[in-house]
């Protein structure tokens, strides 16, 4: 994968390149550079921590969209064993913006972080999938699903319900696709039906926002018993660009709109819209996907264990009550 560097990543990237260069030099044995290399390493680490400790909301958006950011399939490869992808909505076509499938996930006991090999979850996985590069992105439609994508998701949810499999969704989409075909085939109805169905599914549902959580297109996989968010992912009612072009009449106000909408994992945890933030390595998930995948697996596994301990009707009731609480208003 070609490395892509965001503007605010550049000072760190430059130091890293310099360290590499010096290491090459040292390898050739020309001069002893250990001290210098160590000094630069420390400097790079310090700078990295500093930059990542005070990211603004727009920088979070940039990280959430980072071309090197791990996508759904990358996590599935690390989290799910024996993954079998299932295709099609049985009606119109297979929407590649959404991956759906079945597999197994190792169970982690609630009290420890040690894997217990003896036991595992059979699970259903549904996710939006971004493409890597132009060709792949055309196939994936930039992770912007059509109605048939949501209907594929719904089909697999009902399959999961029938065979009593908990469902994990990985959310990463700029939003549902705003096109002619999508409207003709009922984008709105497809999203609405998913919200309605997820609210009453008899199996546990855990959603993880791994990149962009964009509007109704994200929410159509996002009604869940537990919602987790990767540290640098974002979740909002509309993209910052969309918000800017409507409210500020100018898409170039995206940065301002991102600030105004308060769309980071910290914001949403504060609003109690999500249940937990999954930390990313300093530098973002793309600098250490294994650790992030492991944390997702541990957290989701614990949530499933906990949720499976609750009676089905009580679980649905709790889901209903959770969403009933959402919102802020005053009453005089």
């Amino acid at each position: 994968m070609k490395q892509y560097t965001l503007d605010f990543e550049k000072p760190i990237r430059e130091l890293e390149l310099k360290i590499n260069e010096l290491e090459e030099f040292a390898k050739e044995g020309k001069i002893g550079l250990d001290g210098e290399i160590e000094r630069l390493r420390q400097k790079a680490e310090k700078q990295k921590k500093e930059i990542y400790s005070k990211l603004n909301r727009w920088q979070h958006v940039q990280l959430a969209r980072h071309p090197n950011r791990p996508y759904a399939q990358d996590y599935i490869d690390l989290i799910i064993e024996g993954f079998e992808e299932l295709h099609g909505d049985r009606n119109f076509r297979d929407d590649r913006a959404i991956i759906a499938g079945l597999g197994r996930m190792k169970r982690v006991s609630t009290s420890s972080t040690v894997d217990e090999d003896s036991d595992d979850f059979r699970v259903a996985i549904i996710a939006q999938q971004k493409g890597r590069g132009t060709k792949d992105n055309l196939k994936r439609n930039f992770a912007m699903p059509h109605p048939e994508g949501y209907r594929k998701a719904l089909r697999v949810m009902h399959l999961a319900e029938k065979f009593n499999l908990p469902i994990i969704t990985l959310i990463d989409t700029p939003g549902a696709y705003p096109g002619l075909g999508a409207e003709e085939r009922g984008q709105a109805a497809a999203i609405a039906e998913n919200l309605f169905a997820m609210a009453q599914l008899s199996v546990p549902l855990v959603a993880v926002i791994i990149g962009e959580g964009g509007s109704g297109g994200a929410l159509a996989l996002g009604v869940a018993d537990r919602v987790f968010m990767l540290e640098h992912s974002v979740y909002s009612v509309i993209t910052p660009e969309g918000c800017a072009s409507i409210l500020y009449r100018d898409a170039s106000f995206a940065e301002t709109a991102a600030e105004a909408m308060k769309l980071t994992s910290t914001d949403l945890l504060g609003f109690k819209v999500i249940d937990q933030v999954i930390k990313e390595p300093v530098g973002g998930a793309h600098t250490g996907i294994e650790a992030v995948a492991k944390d997702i697996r541990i957290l989701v596994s614990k949530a499933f264990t906990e949720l499976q301990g609750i009676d089905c009707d009580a679980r649905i009731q709790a889901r209903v009550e959770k969403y009933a609480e959402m919102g802020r208003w005053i009453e005089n």
Partner: protein
Amino acid sequence: MAAWFKRSGKPLKSEQRRDIPDGVWIKCKSCGDTLFKTELMRQKQICKSCGYHFLLPSEEYFKLLLDLDSWTEHDAKVTSVDTLGFKDTLKYSDRIVKYTKKSGLSDAIRCVSGRLDDKPVELAVMDFAFMGGSVGSVVGEKISRSIKRAIQNKTPLIIVSCSGGMRMQEGIFSLMQMAKVSTALVTLSRAKLPFISILTNPTTGGTTASFSMLGDLNISEPGALIGFAGPRVIKQTIGQDLPPGFQSAEFLLDHGFLDMIVKRTDMKPKLSNLLSILTPRE
């Protein structure tokens, strides 16, 4: 297809502004006829020449659909709050004050218990005059309370939608209203009580992608713009003009997303008949 669909390429907001009668007369944007404002209101905001349905205020829907003086309004004191400290060209807190004054409404929806041909119903009517009928926490909460009352009193629920979508000024809270109302509708559905969704011009965005499309019956007024993405956004995406009639009620009926299209003036008898079939007589 009626001529008013030619507007679909233009921005919605200015169109809607023209929709609100100003002064003594108004020009019908569909047929161009000059209509007298008072006469138009007497005709339930329907153009006498071409049948175009202008915006109808929420209060008028109560008169249109419910028996005379049969309704009680609920939760009128639930009002919006600026949780995010949101500011675009105006602070959200100021915008709330501005629209409250301008529209005389407390938010974009009014909810009543009333009687329709003597049948008790919960009726929630969205009003475009308050921030384009955008859905924020207040709309979500008030619909949820209507649902609770419907379950408690074992009555049907009718929602009249008229909305540009989610209220961006409330950020993620507005998105969550889609989940909140859809989830609450599950409780209504489990109680086997009818939910009739009436879609009017316009119903777009997250409103359509949640409760407006979840009716046991989805009924639209003629010519209503109904969709998820707005015409302007789609036009930008595909880089060409939209086909005539795209996203109209008639288009949605043809594509299978509506049960029927009913003229505003025929709505009450239609609802009365449908409800009498869906609910057993006591």
